C-alpha cells in the first residue's frame, strides 16, 4: 500500500449537492479499488491564478488515500473523463511529506481540541469501572 494525495478542482457551476456527490464518487472509487481514504479537506470555492476552461474560480478538494500503485491510473482516467473536473494532481507521498501532513493535521486539531478534552474529563468518572478491566 502506498499513500497518495490528490487535489482536484471542480467547476464553479456545480451546486453544493453536486460537489458532495462528485467527491463521494471518487471516495467510492478508492474503496472499490481496495484502498481507503486517510484524510479529506474541502478548501471550498477559490479563485484560480489563471483562467482554466474560461472559469476563474473552482471548488478545490484534497483527498489523502492509501491503495496499491495499480489503482492510480484508473483513478486518474476517471478524472480525465469527468467534465466536472477542471484540474487534478496526484502526488505519491514520501515519508517527509506524510510527516508534514500529519503534523499539520495535529496543529489544526489542537486548536479544536480543548473543548473535546473538557468533555472527556467529565466522562471519565463514569468509565472508571471499565478501565481497570481493560488494563488487566
Amino acid at each position, binding site marked *: 500500500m502506498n499513500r497518495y494525495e490528490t487535489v482536484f478542482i471542480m467547476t464553479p457551476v456545480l451546486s453544493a449537492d453536486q460537489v458532495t456527490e462528485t467527491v463521494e464518487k471518487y471516495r467510492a472509487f478508492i474503496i472499490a479499488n481496495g484502498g481507503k481514504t486517510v484524510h479529506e479537506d474541502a478548501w471550498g470555492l477559490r479563485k484560480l*491564478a489563471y483562467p482554466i476552461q474560461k472559469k476563474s474560480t473552482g471548488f478545490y478538494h484534497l483527498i489523502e488515500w492509501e491503495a496499491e500503485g495499480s489503482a492510480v491510473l484508473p483513478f486518474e482516467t476517471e478524472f480525465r473523463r469527468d467534465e466536472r473536473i477542471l*484540474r487534478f494532481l496526484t502526488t505519491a507521498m514520501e515519508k517527509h511529506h506524510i510527516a508534514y501532513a500529519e503534523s499539520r493535521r495535529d496543529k489544526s486539531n489542537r486548536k479544536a481540541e480543548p473543548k473535546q478534552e473538557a468533555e472527556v474529563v467529565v466522562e471519565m468518572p463514569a468509565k472508571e469501572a471499565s478501565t481497570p478491566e481493560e488494563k488487566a
Partner: protein
Amino acid sequence: MADKKVRYLKSIEIDTKAERYCRFRKKGFKYIDYKDPDFLLMLCNPQGKILPRRLTGTSLKYQRKASQAIKKARHLALMPYVADNLN
C-alpha cells in the same frame, strides 16, 4: 548574442559581505509544500519566475524540491505561470 554574460554561482564578493545560507537547511525543512502559494511566492520574482539559487542562496537539494513544488502549484492554479506584479 548580447546575452553572453558570465554568470557566477555565487555573487561576486564586491560590497557583499553578508553570509549566504540556505533558508531550508537552516530551519530544518524536510518537505516543501506545494499547497502553500504564499510561501512559494518568496522564491519567485514579480513576474512569477523562479529565482535562481545564486540569488536566494538555497542549496541545490532544496532548490530542486522548491522548483518542483512551484511547478505543482502552477499546475493547480494556486500560482500563476506568468504575472505582472506579484510581490
